[in-house]
């Protein structure tokens, strides 16, 4: 197991993604580095929901230019982005 899989932050995000976006995709076994857009499990508006959730739950402010696949495209990306924001 890598560090990211053990981290509580990653588990919280996995649970949120599963509850919010995967309930109609039982065939998807989401890995931490799978790309949400490529899998088709989150659309543009879904990302807006995800951004809302990240801002509310982790008390960070997300600028428009930060709403990219690089920052929000996978569990790995989200963990890195949130940790970097918290450290800033």
């Amino acid at each position, binding site marked *: 197991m890598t560090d990211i899989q053990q981290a509580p932050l990653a588990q919280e995000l996995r649970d949120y993604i599963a509850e919010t976006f995967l309930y109609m995709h039982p065939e998807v076994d989401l890995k931490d580095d799978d790309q949400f*857009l490529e899998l*088709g499990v989150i*659309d*543009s*508006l*879904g*990302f*807006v*929901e995800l*951004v*809302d959730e990240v801002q509310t739950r982790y008390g960070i402010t997300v600028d*428009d*230019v930060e*709403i*990219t*696949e690089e920052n*929000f495209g996978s569990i790995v990306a989200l963990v890195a982005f949130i940790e970097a924001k918290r450290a800033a």
Partner: protein
Amino acid sequence: MMPEPQQRTSPLELDVESAIEQLAARTTTAIRELGRRGAVVAVSGGVDSGVVAGLCVRALGPRRVLCLRLPEKDIGSSSADLGLELAEALGTPTAEESITAALDGLGCYRLRDDAIRMVFPDYEPSWRHKLVRSAPTGAIIVFSLVVERPDGTTEQRKMGAEAYRTLIAATNMKQRVRKLIEYTWADRLGYAVIGTPNLLEYDQGFFVKGGDGLADVKPIASLYKTQVYALARALGLPEAIASRAPTTETFSLPQSQEEFFFGHPYDRMDLLVWARDNGVAAAEAGALTALDEQQAEAAYWEIDRRRAATKYLHAEPIIIDPPTAAG
């Protein structure tokens, strides 16, 4: 004397007279196959509905085309005035029915105001507003709400998902009520409802399911916007319609399709979609459209994303297979 070879300056250039003849003939055939005897066209005062009405007149003659004007309080009277000018120029019958009272009764404006207050809690219905998207950089698209207060000051704030969904649900009612009235007239007259989406709108899913996406025949869904403008001139439409910029006809502040949906002006979008579908590399598409390679890649990404995201809008109802016999 030999005719001079035609200089083709754009891959989208059409022989407009031949195109009009073919589209009109196919529209006649389609309406006949549907067993209808005329055409209802909702005319917004824009170039798409103008060209569709003009093609229907070429197809059926003016007496069998009804130009329907469906004004609404947020849009103002200029669109309906242009619709009347179009009907007069084409010599067709025309009818006008305001959709404002219906929308009011259905709760459209109340729902819209609720959505706007999620973003601007002090919003008053007298303020004008519109929805705008983020720049087409290849990042995930973010929508913001712009309001104009009575003193003329404007403010823009990012929309959350619930506010966005609620606002779109409310404003989609406008397109759906328009369509309801179009079909009511079609029933009365035995006519077909003719849709007005062009290729960009159809291909990229810029329409409301059950609203402007619903029609019996769509004569210009395979024409790029640039080509629609060319046809408008060849059909001799009134200048104010033939040169009118594309708008969304939805929000109370003037709003272009570019700032709400496409992220690029229509002539560039035409070329980008054409290039995407013809295997043109992003660097070359960029050269065609005054974008750098990275910007063209971002545009290609958005084109693909929109196609994937709007499959639902194009989907026919799914008929569920019958249950198999027990035992």
